[in-house]
């Protein structure tokens, strides 16, 4: 379980996040929505202790992350940042780096078993020794997620994991994340831009506007008013059975 209590963060005297509070349980996907610059990535970085908030605290299973060293954090949290840089390395070696918080110089049998399990789970067997620069965007995203989950984390943080992917790959990745979250009972926090995809796969929603939460809770909080407030965009919500669909009006 992840608890974010009263987080406030400023940078260069500009307030980025203001009194952020929420709880996310194991086996649940919480998605963070909001326009560009609303503080979504900053919030993920604070949860992963990559940034230090001025106020508030983050608890992972009732343990304040302030008291955790970076290696302990790496064992508890799998983080997939917005992908901007792919070095020259292979799929296997990328997943291997995910075990580094546990391994020292030599790779143990247990590490390899976990790596192999993850490779099977993510369906990456056929491209194992390919250079990551020579695989598709969807495959690369799977590799990045595999690296994050190979350490068996309690929390999974994903920053826009389906950006730049085609519709098939978007759903494939989200289905995988849904399965991982439920099967491994991980707490997943995902920053998404596509509200319809969020509505389809997430359990909980946090909507940010200028660094503050303007709505949080289950699917029902995503209303036409909230979306207009968050994105300055008029929308209409229609229903396909139980599933809400957001249509922009203009």
């Amino acid at each position: 379980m992840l608890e974010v209590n009263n987080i406030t963060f400023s940078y260069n005297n500009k307030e980025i996040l203001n009194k952020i509070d929420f709880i996310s349980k194991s086996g649940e996907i919480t998605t963070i929505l909001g326009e560009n610059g609303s503080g979504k990535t900053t919030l993920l970085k604070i949860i992963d202790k990559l940034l230090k908030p001025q106020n508030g605290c983050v608890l992972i299973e009732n343990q304040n992350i302030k008291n955790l060293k970076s290696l302990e954090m790496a064992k508890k949290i799998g983080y997939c940042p917005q992908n901007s840089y792919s070095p020259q390395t292979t799929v296997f070696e990328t997943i291997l780096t995910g075990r580094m918080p546990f391994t020292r110089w030599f790779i143990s049998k247990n590490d390899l078993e976990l790596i192999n399990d993850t490779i099977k789970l993510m369906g990456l067997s056929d491209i194992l020794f390919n250079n990551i620069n020579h695989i598709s965007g969807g495959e690369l995203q799977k590799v990045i997620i595999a690296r994050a989950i190979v350490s068996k984390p309690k929390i999974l943080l994903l920053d826009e994991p389906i950006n730049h992917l085609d519709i098939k790959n978007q759903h494939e990745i989200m289905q995988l994340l849904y399965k991982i979250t439920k099967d491994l009972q991980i707490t997943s926090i995902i920053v998404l831009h596509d509200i319809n995809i969020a509505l389809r796969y997430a359990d909980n929603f946090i909507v940010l506007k200028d660094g503050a939460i303007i709505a949080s809770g289950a699917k029902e909080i995503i209303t036409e008013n909230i979306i207009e407030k968050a994105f300055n965009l008029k929308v209409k919500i229609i229903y396909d059975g139980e599933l809400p669909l957001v249509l922009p009006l203009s």
Partner: protein
Amino acid sequence: MVVSHKQYTKNKFSTGIILALILLIAIILSINTGNIKFGIFKLFSVFFRFEDNPTLLHVLLNIRLPRVVNALLAGAALSVSGAIMQNLLKNPLASPFTLGISHGAVFGAAVAITLNKGIFLSYSIYTVVFFAFIGAILTMLIILFIGAIKGFSAYVVILAGVGLSSLFASLTMLLQYFSTDEEVAAIVFWTFGDLNKTTWNEIYIMLLIVIPSLVYFILKSPQYNITIWDDATAMSLGVNVKMLKITGLILTCLITAAIVSFMGIIGFIGLISPHIIRLIIGNDHRFLLPYSIFLGSTILLFSDIIGRIILTPATIPVGIITSLFGVPIFFYILLKNKGTI
């Protein structure tokens, strides 16, 4: 496909054995190059004193072996330094000389050579080495100072290095402009990288600087496997990126400074030996760093052998040969190989 550790490392271990054997051959050939030839048996019997031959022992211990040890030291230091720079600065063009260390050292040497007529210096090779080392360390300190202000961003560090290179190159030219012909010749000659400039005393000093640094880099190689990614990823995987960058920059500068100060500028090795190894076995630093040491030393030894025999009895400095013969071989590997840098 299920991966076993054996499967992953098999190719890497066999590459290591081949590289080590080629290095051994290069060492034996280097010892045997010159007017006096040693057979392998002769070599061992003289070295282990089974045969009492003071002349051969002198040639072996004081002429041939220092050359070999210098090649091993410079090859190892420059290759590892290049691999670490390429990693930390996330730039395939990075080399031990990217940060301007060599230009700082040349400027230091130029100061020592041109001011030797002054009142406070008596000119000796040690003075030149000392000033070169100070020049290189000064460059490193300026880089660290500028880097610290900007959070050790790779772009800032690279640009600061390029700027400092130009600055020290200009200062050296300024000194040369006001120097005598002999002094200009001495400065130019000093810059030629050569394995024959040092005796055991200087080698011991280099060993003290280079060996602990290499051990540090090899021990930290799992962390360098992570820092090939962006800083946020590396930090989230538990790496203290800032500390690793600072220590990496200090140690690479230090070992490069030691090599350049004692042997002059030996280009190319630090840039390409890590790249060739990457093309063969990939980017796992647990293998990349030791294999770059093998390859860097081998290239230097063969270049030195070529430099000694090509215009006998004259010897061409190894720094000239490395680029002259090495670059075409590098291009061949680059174009032939399916892998990418």
